[in-house]
C-alpha cells in the first residue's frame, strides 16, 4: 500500500516551492494518487533550455521504500534517456534509491541529469554515440527536439502537420519543414511554398 499521507505531503511541499524550483507534480486523477504527472523546466545553459518536460510517474505499492517509476512523455534527445520510450537511466531511480528522497528531489535529479549527461552509461546508444563522436550535431539535435517537442507551441505538432497536410502538402515534407523552423506553422508554410 502506497503511503498516501506522505504523497499528499510531498505534493503540498512541491506546490509551495514551485516558484523557486519550477518543478510541478500533479496527480493524473484525483482518485488515484499513485499515478502522477511531473513537469520540469529544461536547465538553463543546456540544449534543453526553454523546454518544459513532462514525466509520467507511477508509484509502486512499497513507495517510499521502493523508487517511483519515472518516464519522460515528452521526447528528449539525451544519452541517458531513451529517445523512443522516454525511459530514464538514473541510479537513484534504481539501486541508489533512498526513502528520504521525494518526488521533488528525484525530479531535481532528473533535471540535473539533463544538464550533465553520462554518455559512458547510456540508455540510448545512438544518442550516446553521437554525443561522443559529434558533439555539435548532438547539441543541434537536442535543441531541435526541445524546440519541437518540449515547447508549449510545439505540443500540438501533429495537429500542425495535419493542417499542413490538409493544405495539400505531403506529410513527410510538412513535418520536416516544421522541424527545420522549430515548430512555427507559418514559417513552415513559407518554407513549403518557397521550396
Amino acid at each position: 500500500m502506497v503511503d498516501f499521507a506522505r504523497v499528499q505531503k510531498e505534493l503540498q511541499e512541491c506546490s509551495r516551492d514551485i516558484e523557486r524550483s519550477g518543478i510541478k507534480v500533479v496527480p493524473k486523477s484525483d482518485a488515484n494518487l499513485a499515478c502522477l504527472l511531473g513537469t520540469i523546466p529544461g536547465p538553463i545553459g543546456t540544449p534543453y533550455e526553454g523546454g518544459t518536460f513532462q514525466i509520467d510517474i507511477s508509484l509502486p505499492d512499497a513507495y517510499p521504500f521502493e523508487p517511483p517509476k519515472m518516464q519522460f512523455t515528452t521526447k528528449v534527445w539525451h544519452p541517458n534517456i531513451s529517445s523512443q520510450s522516454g525511459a530514464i537511466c538514473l541510479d537513484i531511480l534504481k539501486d541508489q534509491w533512498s526513502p528520504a528522497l521525494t518526488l521533488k528531489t528525484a525530479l531535481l535529479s532528473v533535471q540535473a541529469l539533463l544538464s550533465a549527461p553520462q554518455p559512458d552509461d547510456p540508455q540510448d546508444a545512438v544518442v550516446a554515440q553521437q554525443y561522443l563522436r559529434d558533439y555539435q550535431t548532438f547539441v543541434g539535435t537536442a535543441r531541435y527536439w526541445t524546440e519541437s517537442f518540449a515547447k508549449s507551441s510545439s505540443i500540438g505538432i501533429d495537429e500542425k502537420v495535419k493542417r499542413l497536410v490538409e493544405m495539400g502538402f505531403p506529410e513527410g515534407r510538412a513535418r520536416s519543414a516544421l522541424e527545420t523552423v522549430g515548430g512555427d506553422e507559418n514559417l513552415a508554410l513559407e518554407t513549403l511554398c518557397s521550396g
Partner: protein
Amino acid sequence: MAKRVLCKFFAHGACLKGEHCEFSHDWKDPSNNICTFYQKGACAFGSRCRYEHVKGSRAQSSGSSSSANSHQSLAFDSALAHPSRTASSGVALVPGTLSELSAFSSPFLPPPKPAWSDSLDDGDFDHNEDDDVGETRSARPADRAICSFAAAGNCPRGENCPHIHGDICPSCGKHCLHPYRPVEREEHMRTCEEKHKQLEALKRSQEIECSVCLERVLSKPTVAERKFGILSECDHPFCISCIRNWRSSSPTSGMDVNSALRACPICRKLSYFVIPSVIWYNTKEEKEEIVDSYKARLSSIDCKHFDFGNGNCPFGTSCFYKHTVKPGSYVWKFHRPPPRRPPPRRSDTVRMDALYEMFEHLEELEDYTPGDLDIPLEVQLLLMQLGLYPSDSSDDELNY
C-alpha cells in the same frame, strides 16, 4: 559508661565484641525485647511475634540521661500497660515528641516519616554516641520533617505552619528543599534537574520529523509508532517503524543490502544497528547514554535465537541479548553453535511424523547416494530438516 540494655548477642553467648560492646553484658540489665519491625510499621508475625509490639521506644522524659534511653523506654512502655491502645492510636506519643506536638498544638501529623521513626531506624544496636545526642534529636532541625503541604506546592497555614517550610527548588519551584539536610537537598536538586532536562529534551523531540514518512515522530497515531530509531553511525532522525521497514525491505533489483538498505537514507552512512528511543538526543553523550542503557537492558534478556545453547543466533557474538549456555545444550557439548536449520513449523510436525516411515524406506536404499534419487524438492527439504539429506549446512555437522 552506662550499659543499660542487655546485649542480645551476649544473651545467646555469641557477642563478638566482648568488652568493647556498646550493650550491657550484665545479666542484671533488662533485655530490649521490642519488635523493631512493628515500630517501623509492619511486623509479619503480628500477634504471634515473640517480641513486644510497642510503639515508641525512645522515651525521652526531659532531663533524663539519654544514655538511659532504652531503659527509660522500657519503663515508659510498661507504664503504658496497654500497648495495644497506643498502637491503635496510630501515632506514637512519646513524651519527647508529645511535648513537641503539644507545643505546636497542631492536628497535623508529621508527614510520612514521623520524627521518631528516623531515630528508630538506627536500630536497637545504636552506638552510645547516637544515644547521647538522642535527647537533642527531636529538637535538631535536621530531624524535623518539612511540611508536606508546602512541598507539594501550597501550605494553607502559611507563616503559621508549625512545620519547617522547605526552600524553593530552582528546578521545580516547590518548597521541597530541606533547609538542614544537605544530602537530601542535593539529591533532590539532582533528580529534579535530570527530570527537567528530560522534559526539555522531550519538548525538543516533539518537533522532529521523520524524513521517510515526513511526519513528526512523536505525533504518530499509535503509541508504538512514537519512537525514534537511532542509527549507530549518524545523527539523522527517523521513526523506528520507518527505518526498520527500510532496513528490512526486500531489495529491489540491483539494490545491495549492505550499501543501500543498511545505510542512512539521508547521508548513506552505514549503520550496523538501530536503537529505539522515545527521546531524541542533543549531544553525543546523551546518544551514548541512550544506546548504553538500551544495550544494558537487552543484555539481561535471554536471546531466543541462541536458545540457551541449542539454537543458532545469526548475530553471533555481537548479539545484544544474553547468550546463556545451559549444561547439556549443543554449545555446552561441542563448544560451537549448532548448524543452521529453518525453524520447525508447528503445522509441519504432524505431517513430518507421518512421512517419517517413508523416509525409512528411502534410507534402506543405501546403495544410492541421495543425489541420485529422484526426490522432489519439498521432500529434499524435509530430509534436510531431519538431517538425512546432505546439505551445505548439515555437512559441517558430520565433520567434527
